[in-house]
Structures are given as structure tokens and as C-alpha cells.
């Protein structure tokens, strides 16, 4: 068994190599930098490519180039850097290129600070770049999931030919926990659409420009069809104590760890609370959440934001159940006492 006590960020770097990723382009930013440090150490040792780019804009466009050449490629950053990458993400989506992008969220807007926040939900889950596209977004809440979801991200990116995000936060990146790594290395496959600089692939072209409205709409419709397929097949979630729950707490990433402790305490006091933790933020696990809304009385959403994911919960339950929200920002982490108090108030409202 390959078990390590390891930081979330470092688990991502190791997992990428095991997923068959051979190229990494990035620009340093706290609290994501352990990833670039680790990759700079590991990748050259097996002949992989590591470049510290001149900016996040350059990094994502290098990733675009590598993806166009059929390489498994990753780039990582934190919120301000992700804002810069959005141009490239839109191009990746338009040209249908697989690429794994890691966002270790920090507080904002602007330069903000380096403490954990979940204020990038809208930017990542709802688009961020221009045009009609969607990106699969995986939301780990532990170093083990940082590993597992990074590997999964490469699979999904290749399967659906598009950029896939792993959306995490400063604490999940910094925290160390035991992680079991898989005992295998995934192999890159030759892609029939990619550019290899040889005769066989010389007829291939990667682009996102369309000459006219007819051609562009055809592409949009094709992409849309793919997105519907992803919505049908790839929604992932975890649930905890939902069977008899009167109130279900919905949260993701580090918030779900905070919520987990609070739910345990509330259960000890006899409150019938449960938890629903989306693991994919797009596609959002709407079907299961809808089912749960038939059973429970209300939902409580906890985020380190001004209320972003809560919009998806409200859209899903379509007003059939009340959805309360509690959030902290600026890198502030709510205390257990605080969260438990808020949840009790929400619980007792109905």
C-alpha cells in the first residue's frame, strides 16, 4: 500500500503524475504554491515538463498548447490567478481540449488575503470566461479527495474533451492527512485529434474560431449536447445521516468539514440534522437533492462566501422547501459554537 501523511496540495502533485500527467505550467501564488514546488521537484525526474510561466495567462495558454498536442497537462493557481486564466479556459472549452485546472481558493475580491474562502464558486462553476461553455468542477474536502479527484479530473477531461476544475481552498490545500495513493500509473493514449508533429497527425487542426453564425451555433449545440450528457452521468455527492433528517446541511469543501463537526454535535443533542455534500459542483447533483427535498423540512447552506452555491440549492428545490444560508468571508472560519448556534436557529424556525 502507498500510504502517506501528506498535505492536500502535495497530494495533488503526486496524483497528477500517477494520472499520467507529464506536463505542468504554472505561476506561484499562495496558498497553492506547494503544488508548483512539488511538481518542480518531481516532473523533471521522470522526464516530464515543468515550466514556471511568466503569468497565469501564459501558463493556461501553454496548457492549451500541450493539450492540443495530446498531452495530459495540469495548471494550478489560487483565486486572483484563476481570474487571469479565464481567457484560456474559454479557449480550451471552445477547442474541446482536455486540461486539469486546480483552484486553491483564497479570500477576495482583489488581492484579498491568503486565508480560505469559497468566493470563486460563481467564477468557476458558472463560467468565468466568455461564451457558452461549462466545465466539470470537482470539490474535494480532504487530502485523500485531492488525490482521488485529481486523478478523476484527468479521466473526465479526456473522456469529455474539455477543461476540468478541482476547486479547493487554502485549508484543504494546507492540511495534512493520511492519503492512500493508487498502485498504478495511468498511461497517456494517442488521441486521433491531437497534433504530434508527424505524418499521421498532420491533417489535424485545433481551433475555436468559426466563420459564421451557422457554424458557431452548430458547435454550441454540439457542446450543449455533451454538457447534457455530463449532467446525466457525472453528478457526484456524499450524504450523511439524511434518512430521518428534518434539516439537511448542504456544503462543500472545507465548509463541509466544519458542518460535519457541527452536525455530529447537534445529533448528540437530539437534533435531526443530516448532511448533503456535492462532490461535483457542475454538474450539480440536482436529482438527489430534489429527492431529499421531498423528505426533509428545510435546508441550511454553509459556505465561506457571500452566498454563491446556495443559489444552486434554491434553484434545485424550487421554493418547495426553505433554504437558509450562513456564510463567513475574508478568510474567517466560523467557530463550532457559532455554526451550531446558527443551525439551531435555522432548525427551530420551521
Amino acid at each position, binding site marked *: 500500500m*502507498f500510504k502517506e*501523511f501528506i498535505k492536500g496540495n502535495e497530494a495533488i*502533485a*503526486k496524483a497528477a*503524475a500517477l494520472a*499520467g500527467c*507529464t506536463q505542468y*505550467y504554472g505561476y506561484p501564488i*499562495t*496558498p497553492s504554491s506547494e503544488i508548483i514546488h512539488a511538481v518542480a521537484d518531481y516532473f523533471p*525526474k*521522470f*522526464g*516530464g*515538463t515543468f*515550466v514556471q510561466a*511568466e*503569468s497565469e*495567462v*501564459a501558463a493556461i*495558454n*501553454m496548457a*492549451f*498548447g*500541450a493539450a*492540443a*498536442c*495530446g498531452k495530459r*497537462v495540469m495548471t494550478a493557481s489560487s483565486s486572483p490567478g484563476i481570474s487571469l486564466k479565464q*481567457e*484560456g479556459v474559454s*479557449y480550451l472549452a471552445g477547442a474541446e481540449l482536455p486540461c486539469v485546472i486546480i483552484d486553491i481558493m483564497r479570500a477576495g475580491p482583489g488581492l484579498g488575503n*491568503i486565508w480560505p474562502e469559497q468566493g470563486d464558486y460563481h467564477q468557476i462553476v458558472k463560467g468565468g470566461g466568455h461564451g457558452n461553455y461549462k466545465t466539470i468542477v470537482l470539490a474535494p474536502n480532504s487530502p485523500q479527495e485531492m488525490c482521488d479527484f485529481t486523478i478523476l479530473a484527468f479521466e473526465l477531461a479526456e473522456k469529455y474533451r474539455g477543461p476540468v476544475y478541482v476547486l479547493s481552498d487554502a*485549508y484543504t490545500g*494546507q*492540511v*495534512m*492527512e*493520511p492519503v492512500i495513493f493508487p498502485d498504478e*500509473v495511468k*498511461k*497517456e493514449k494517442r488521441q486521433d485529434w491531437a*497534433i*504530434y*508533429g*508527424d505524418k499521421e*497527425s*498532420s491533417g*489535424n*487542426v*485545433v*481551433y475555436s*474560431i468559426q*466563420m*459564421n453564425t451557422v*457554424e458557431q451555433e452548430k458547435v454550441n449545440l454540439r457542446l450543449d449536447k455533451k454538457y447534457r450528457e455530463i449532467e446525466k452521468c457525472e453528478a457526484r455527492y456524499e450524504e450523511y445521516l439524511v434518512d430521518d433528517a428534518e434539516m439537511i446541511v448542504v456544503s462543500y469543501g472545507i465548509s463541509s*468539514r*466544519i458542518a*460535519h463537526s457541527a*452536525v455530529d454535535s447537534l445529533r448528540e443533542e437530539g437534533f435531526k440534522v443530516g448532511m448533503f455534500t456535492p462532490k461535483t459542483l457542475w454538474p450539480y447533483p440536482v436529482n438527489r437533492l430534489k429527492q431529499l427535498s421531498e423528505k426533509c423540512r428545510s435546508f441550511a447552506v454553509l459556505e465561506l462566501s457571500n452566498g454563491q452555491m446556495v443559489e444552486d440549492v434554491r434553484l434545485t428545490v424550487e421554493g418547495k422547501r426553505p433554504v437558509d444560508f450562513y456564510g463567513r468571508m475574508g478568510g474567517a472560519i466560523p467557530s463550532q459554537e457559532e455554526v451550531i448556534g446558527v443551525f439551531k436557529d435555522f432548525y427551530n424556525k420551521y
Partner: protein
Amino acid sequence: MGKILKRPKGFFETFDRKPGTDQRVTHYCPGCGHGRVHKLLAEAMEELEVIDRSIFISPVGCSVFGFYYFNCGNIQAAHGRAPAVATAASRSNPDSIVICYQGDGDLAAIGTAEILHAANRGENMTVIFVNNAIYGMTGGQMAPTTLEGQITATTPLGRDLANEGYPMRMAEIISQLHAPVYVAREAVSDVKSVMKAKRSIRKAMQSQKDHKGFSFVEILATCPTGWKLDPIESIQYIEKEMKEQFPIKVFKDVISEREPKAKHYPSTKKEDIFAAVNLVENVDLFPRDQEFIDNFSEQRFRIAGFGGQGVLMAGTTLAYLAMEHGLETTWLPSYGPEMRGGTANCHVILSNKKIGAPMVETPNVLIALNLPSYDQFEPLLESGGLILVNSSIIERENKRDDVTTLRIPMNEIAESCGVRAAANMAALSAYLTYSKLMKIDRLVTLIKHNFKKRDLIDKNIAVIEKASEYVTKHYL
């Protein structure tokens, strides 16, 4: 001019990717310099026998549709980012010929950072920089290379140097960097200059074939549409106006002096990758003791002190020990600005259940290695908890009497064994001995397993034993 008479093999026979009716001609305006440059490139590809190995990067600009024409792998990049895309294309395919084709808006305005850094890294690529002193595609706006007084859509009174700055001489700028091997400026105006331009392009591509690195060929080219001149007048404009600002010259040629750059191919062997990422098969340090796990009650630590006292490592060691005993564990460090001013602290949780929040708000154990940490964290401790104080440097008495406070001279113990830095081990040993969580030989086993230096192992073991004796003597 749109018509290409003798078609070099670097071009497709017919331009099937191009929409519309006439797929034998390009989409460029009559008299456009792009068509001429394309032809030179296609000829060079054929003559150097690299058509199949070529990867053509189209920019955003009038040449965005380069992929209609070149009979090789094609990638269309975002505006100004062609050198970044080309960087990865070249590294992905070390044996390919990567042609990074850019206009003056693309290269000298929006993509300034990308071109400078690709050049500075000496990426193995050939940059073809088509300088037509204007933005052709978007309707004739000013480019960084627009001449003084030149009228464009955004300089209706002519480029005013005081307001818009000076025409940028990119070849000169690039030639100042160390890495590029070949930097030249050419023109495609009269027959003679076209021939010369072709020689430069060939030279650049040959150098790339020999893996010598980065070459940059700037080419003064016509844009009759943007300039509002006819094709003949446009050629005169290059000759009379542009060449004055942009001298035709080889600025740098060090191809023969440079060694070929190394090519890298990634290994796909499992053992190589596992070795590179330092993944080694686990050895079970201790037999699994289910009873120990089942009876374990959650421990929540804050460990704090000066940077350099091994605070973070005390935490990881404790967590590692717990992991090896089959427990759940998490460790969260202070980081960033928190670390400035020389203090460090970490949160550690050991549990037999899945751990929720990794933050420890109310610790039941505090290890305080210096006074500021003692002051900061003593009030947070859960009633009935345990504090281990480094009495070597903390003199004050405890303020809380609802918790147990052990005063251990951690520095003295460590120093007496010859390792000042091992105060953290003294703390861990003291904790394990007092709490009876596990025998200290478990810690010793772990140290032997994790530490590399024999001498350090022995000294740390001495610290562990001494601290344990101290606790036994004074507190048990």
C-alpha cells in the same frame, strides 16, 4: 495577389478548410504581405523536408486562418498567446518544427510578455513576425509599430509620439536577450528582398531542425487595405517609410556557436514515476490493535512556539504516530504572514472517528514551547486539559487551575543530549509518558524509521528517554 501560382508542397493542394467558392486562393486582400510570407514558409517547409513535422501556430489577426493553407499540424491560439502555445507544442514534440506566426498587434502589444519570455527561455521555435504597422483584421487601428504621423482608425490625426509613444522595434529588443540564436528583420517588398527574406526563414527553420533554439524573423509586410494604398504604393511605402524606421538587418546570428538543446521524453515506467514522486511501499511499523483504536478518545492539540523549535514537526510526528496506529488524524499549520515574526503553531487532531473540521478551537492538549504561545493559547484550553510548558524559557506560573500544567525543561534536556533543536521531541516524549497514550518506544521506532542520519537518531532517542524519565520522576 491572392492567387498562388506555383504551389509549394507546404500548402494544401486546394484550401478545403476555407469556406466559400474559390478554394484555390487565400482569403487575404490583393497585395497583402501575409500571402507572400505564407508562400515563403510553405516553400521552406518543402525544401527542408519538414512538412509532416511542422506545427503551425496561427495567431489572432488576419492570419488567424493559417490552418486553411498549411499542410501540417495546425493550432490556432488566443490573441498574443501564440508563443505560449508554441512553447508547449515544441516541448510536447521535441522533433517537430514549430512555427509561431504573429502580427504586430498580436506580438508587440497584447502578447509582449509571451514573446519576450519564450525568447528568453530560448524555446526551440521559429517566430515569424509580420510587421505591417497596423491592425489589419479589426479595421486598421494603430499598432505598436505604426509609424510617426501614420493615420489609422485610432490615430486619425496621425500617430503622435507624445501621446502614443514610439514605433517599437521588436527585432532589436529580442536581439538583446541572450537565448535567441538568430534575429533578423526582412521585408517582402521587391523581388530581391523577398529572396533575402526566404533565406532568413530557411536559416531559422534549419536552426530549429538542429535544435538550436529560438529564432525570430521580423518581416515588413504590406497591408494595402489598412494603409488605404494600392498594392504598388504599398510596396513603395515599405521601401520609403518603413525601412527607415525598421532597418533591414541580421541583428544576431550565433547559431553556429550554440550547442543543440537537449530533448526530453517522459518515462512511462511505473517505477520511474513512483521514484520521482517519492512514493514508497508502506511498512507496518506497529501491529494493529483494534482495542486501542476502539477505546481511543479524541485528542485535540495546539502546538506552538518560535519558528525553528520544531513546532510543525512535533505536530506531524504526533499525527504520523497516530496514523501508524490506525487512527484518523489531521494536521493544519499556521502559514503565510502568520509565520512572520518568528512564531509557528499547528492544530493536530487524533481520533478513532472520521474527523470533521481540522481546526482546533478548544484544545485538550497544549504544547507551549515559548511564552507568547503559552499566553495566547492557555485561555483556549478545555477545562480538565493538559498543558506542557517549556520551563527552560517560560518562567511564569499557570493562570488556569482547572487544567493540568506540566513544566518540563525541554531546552535543557535537548541541549544536554547535544541537539538543541530536539526540544520538540522532549515535548512529545513528555506528553506520551504522562498521558500513557502509548509507550515511548513507539516514538523511538518512528524516529528510527523516519530519520536519515544515524547520529541524529541516537541523540533524539537520548532526548526522548531523558524527557520520559523527567516526567516519571516529577509527575507520576
